């Protein structure tokens, strides 16, 4: 697993992983216009990272997104979600949609729903990838490379 899979798998992954990530970002950002949303898009982002992890092995992937990085994105997404919700107090209450509604059907519409979607996407993507790291990469009796 450390050295990764065969050359064919690595080449295909190199071609495809970027498009998977792009599709995940599209699903997150266009959640209020077309079917999708933060949860589905975040899961697609996590799937792209897991594909890279399976194809290239542990070292190469942990350089892209370390375990602490996944934890930070997860917590940051959760905090951003609550913060955006709390910003609604500017307009009168928790979760009040205070931004302009824009023109329905455009990307810049629906007030803070795209922001909330982005927060959920970061949280879900990093969380699922972190769980995969914890289940597949942590070995019993061997802790991760942590100098502290």
């Amino acid at each position, binding site marked *: 697993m450390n050295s990764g899979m065969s050359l064919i798998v690595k080449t295909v992954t190199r071609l495809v992983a970027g498009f998977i990530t792009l599709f995940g970002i599209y699903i997150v950002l266009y959640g209020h216009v077309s079917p999708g949303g933060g949860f589905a898009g975040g899961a697609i982002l996590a799937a792209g990272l897991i594909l890279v992890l*399976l194809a290239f092995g542990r070292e190469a992937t942990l350089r892209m997104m370390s375990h602490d990085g996944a934890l930070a994105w*997860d917590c940051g997404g959760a905090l951003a979600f609550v913060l955006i919700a709390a910003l609604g107090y500017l307009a009168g209450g928790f979760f009040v949609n205070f931004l302009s509604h824009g023109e329905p059907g455009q990307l810049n519409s*629906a007030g803070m*729903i795209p922001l909330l*979607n982005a927060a959920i996407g970061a949280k879900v993507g990093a969380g699922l990838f*972190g769980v995969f790291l914890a289940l597949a990469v*942590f070995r019993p009796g061997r*802790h991760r490379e942590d100098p502290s």
Partner: protein
Amino acid sequence: MGMVMLLLLALLAFMIIGSLIAAESEDLLSAVVCVGAVGSGLAIIDLLLGAPDLAITQVVVEVLCVAILIRVVLTRRDETHETHKDTFAIATVLLVLGVLLVLGGWAMTTLHPFGQPLLASDAPGVAAQYLAGGVAEVGAVNYVMSVLLDYRAYDTLGEATVIFVSVIGSYAILRRTGRSHRAARSQEGES
């Protein structure tokens, strides 16, 4: 009975057979594959019933779960599988399941008829208001998102909290072995 209904029943039978094989199989890997088949059937059912949001989420999460489970099953062999031959326990479970089945069937008769849209514009309650005012009040063309992140955002906050807590909990459980080993190793180093 329409074409869609026939397809739904066929998919339902496929999923029930898949779950039975998954529950009864001795090999963990084939059980995981059967769980993946059940999830794909559920995704197609979502698509047939006109819920593309759910179908996308179901497909992606199912692929992720199967990948994670296969990875875990391949690295960690579970040798603790054992067969129970306790007749009394099996009889009790079957009896309770039968009672639950009867009660569930009775409860099904009070549900909304299958295939009729629950969110009709003339339905009682808040559904009509969501459908009538969704675009004007929120600005999102996708009604699912306007309900999830505006009208019912508190529910989404709870759901997000559940995911967050489960992720943090899995870290805590899976890291404990590493931490205790680290402590043991440092003690060995001192002595």
